[in-house]
């Protein structure tokens, strides 16, 4: 029986290994998230590859984020002090526009906007920059204003 089972099990192994296998090429990744503390600093690794590198012998955490206020996800909704005017804050907030959802952040450079939600301050800091601190978006016959001011 062993003689039969062994090659079959091997075939099973081939099957399993054949389609992705145990390799670690750049063909796939996942949303595995892990924190590492080195030298009093906390690194947040947001993918399996990044976590493997950070937790490895070389402690390569270059693909991970340093925990800081900038790694906090922005969830606060922006206020509308005036109809069709959205007020963005320095802590960042989510803008529910007529036909889109954006996340905004007011920085020293101006207004930063990035499409979507569940974004961190760090991510939004790399979004579109409006140095004047505000932007007008025409939506049909309306104009929506997003502003830091």
């Amino acid at each position, binding site marked *: 029986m062993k003689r039969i089972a062994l090659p079959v*099990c091997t075939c*099973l192994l081939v099957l399993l290994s*054949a389609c992705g*296998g145990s390799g670690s*090429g750049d063909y*796939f*990744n996942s949303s595995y998230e892990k924190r590492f503390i080195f030298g009093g600093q906390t690194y947040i690794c947001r993918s399996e590859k990044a976590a493997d590198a950070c937790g490895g012998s070389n402690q390569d955490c270059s693909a991970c984020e340093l925990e800081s206020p900038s790694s906090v996800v922005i969830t606060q909704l922006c206020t509308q002090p005036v109809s069709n005017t959205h007020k963005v804050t320095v802590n960042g907030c989510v803008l529910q526009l007529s036909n889109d959802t954006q996340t905004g952040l007011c920085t020293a450079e101006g207004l930063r906007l990035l499409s979507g939600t569940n974004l961190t301050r760090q991510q939004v800091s790399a979004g579109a920059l409006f140095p004047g601190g505000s932007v007008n978006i025409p939506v049909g016959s309306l104009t929506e204003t997003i502003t830091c001011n």
Partner: protein
Amino acid sequence: MKFLAALVIGMFCFGLGYCVARSTPESEPTVSEPNQDMAVENFIHTIQQKNQTQPEDPTALQQQLKEQKTQVNSIIDQATPEQINKYLQQAFPDYDLSNIHDKHAFAKRLVGEFVDAKNDPHERMTGQASVTAQQQYMANNLLPRQVYAGQQLFAHFDTLGKTPNNEQVFVRWSNQATGEVLFFMPQRISANREQNWVSFKPAKGWKVGSYDVKYYQLNDQLVPIAQTSFTIDQVIE
């Protein structure tokens, strides 16, 4: 016994693409056990070393298994749990298989999902999945029909709280038209949230066509979590 030899030889031929086999396929069934063990160990070792790239022709193995699925299942039934366990652990060294109590059932489910690699739109799913070009999950964010050949695509899934959160899932990416399995592996995810993703790109790049993605719990029965399909209309080389 004849078909078994053919099956073994066929699969080994597939595997030989990766490794330097020391025995001839014809002599496989008569190799003495110590030598066979050594060949298997070498085989596994070589696969693990060379599996940094994807296989040239996974459909050959897939087709053979499909034709002889009943026999393969029967043989899996006859293998000892230790044997199945050993090879599962060697196939997935980085994953915790302790939640899989019935290794035979698991192995047979793997074979089943490997050979019938198409999503069944009528199969009941507890979660949702969608494929996008971005790592960031956004509701209603559809995959552009035009993608770069070497672009990783992200298969997001949401358990909707109906599946126990686990640090591992099993995922399959396949070509809808040919049924070819492109990726079939456990993956580690974040257990502290309901939305996760696995990204993937084929070694030879995306081709125009429709694809299926299916997520499973990593348990005995590979219980499905969510599935989705997507279409690529144009590939930018």
